């Protein structure tokens, strides 16, 4: 199949289908739209796509960067139709069927992107794509986990422009929170704001340090060294 982009009618149909999944009046989303000229339009390059699965959001982000490399960035960024088409095509990946046969799509912006700064990173494909584009394999701990959900680590960092744009911060999350044996986040790192040294405390402390230090010029190691004692438990684990 060739990669295409949903047009206005296609996005509306997809949105309606998501609503039906949510309210339980349907358990399936038709992928017939994907090649229907009335609901899609061509993109500027011929790109073949094949069905496949992904073990993590990192793998998904890397794959999407390769897949879309033939398109100009202006055609990728803020292109609601393109990302909606990709979500529909990969619907089993981003909204897998549960044991009872149902699907839980969550909010529309997880599948049809909202490029406003509040929800931009919440799209389940665009989010990993953009983080991997910026930071490559260093996104490993933020893009850990299944493609159908985002981790607490990702949620806290990716939603804050001043943090997600900073390679040192991304590296610091790896140094603090990645289990070296499994590549997954250490247990408890994504806990509540009261967890000492957890990611929510990291965000708060970095926002304070940002008033005093030129955080953007720091390496991940320098950032980790600068953190207060409550982060020792993560530095040492």
């Amino acid at each position: 199949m060739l990669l295409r982009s949903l047009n206005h009618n296609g996005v509306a149909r997809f949105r309606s289908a998501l609503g039906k999944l949510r309210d339980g009046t349907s358990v399936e989303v038709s992928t017939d739209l994907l090649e229907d000229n009335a609901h899609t339009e061509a993109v500027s390059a011929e790109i073949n796509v094949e069905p496949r699965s992904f073990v993590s959001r990192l793998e998904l982000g890397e794959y999407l960067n390769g897949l879309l490399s033939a398109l100009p960035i202006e055609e990728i960024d803020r292109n609601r139709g393109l990302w909606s088409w990709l979500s529909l095509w990969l619907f089993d990946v981003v909204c897998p069927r549960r044991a009872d046969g149902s699907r839980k799509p969550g909010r529309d912006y997880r599948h049809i992107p909202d490029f406003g700064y509040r929800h931009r990173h919440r799209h389940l494909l665009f989010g990993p794509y953009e983080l991997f584009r910026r930071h490559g394999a260093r996104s490993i701990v933020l893009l850990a986990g299944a493609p159908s959900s985002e981790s607490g680590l990702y949620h806290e960092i990716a939603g804050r422009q001043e943090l997600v744009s900073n390679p040192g911060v991304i590296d610091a999350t790896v140094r603090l929170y990645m289990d070296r044996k499994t590549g997954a986040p250490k247990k408890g790192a994504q806990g509540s704001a009261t967890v000492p040294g957890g990611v929510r405390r990291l965000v708060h402390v970095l926002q304070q340090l940002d008033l005093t230090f030129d955080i953007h010029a720091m390496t991940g190691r320098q950032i980790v060294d600068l953190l207060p004692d409550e982060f020792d438990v993560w530095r040492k684990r």
Partner: protein
Amino acid sequence: MIRRLNYTGRRKISRARVTVRLIPAKRGDGYAFHVDYDLKGLRFPDTARVYVEAYNVASYMRFSFGTVGERHDPRTTDLRDVTPRPLPRFRLKVVDEQDRLGLLLGVADKIVPLRPEEELSHKQSLLPVEFCDLGDRVWRLDLTDSPVLELNNRVEGIADAARVGGSFVGLVFPEVVRGVLSHILFVLREDDPTADDSEWTSQWLRYALALPDVGALPEQDADREEWIDQAVHAFCRARQAREKLETTLRKESQ
């Protein structure tokens, strides 16, 4: 909102001291930038380093401009890693790097760049204008980051029409005001005009409240819809929207 405390005496550099202008990039179709800044009288050490950062919701770049005492422009200011939309903002930092870690001595943030041909009087405009290909649309209000009025660069004379034409004052800008205020109150749920002087949301709320006959911001959403309507009406009155549109229509029909 998290209240951030500045215990270390870092100085806020007034945005009036910094002017950033976008210019065509040396390579490719994108933008580069030129910056003028005046740090005199702020008592920064001559050895402190000066950096300018360009950023938007999607991207970030950083450029070194030497020290406070001796400016050295970078070889290029091409914004090759910064997406042209949403319109990037700029930040100027003065950093003490005597120690191992850079200590922030002063910062001017959220600087809205001027367009290549834009007049200096438009600096820190509440509504920067961006010219781009919008297909068959004439204009679009981009609220991805902070408000930007996008105008279709395929429409000949659109810049003049937006600047002085009665049709824009009469038909476009009132809806822009409505769109921005609705976004602030009902999407972002911000309602404090004094929250942060440098935040566009506070600036827009203050602008609306300063319009003639606009009352205090009500508590309830239903009343806020009416308040927005009041602000749009006040804007139209203050800008003589109807009269200007009528003049334009008269000229067109002659």
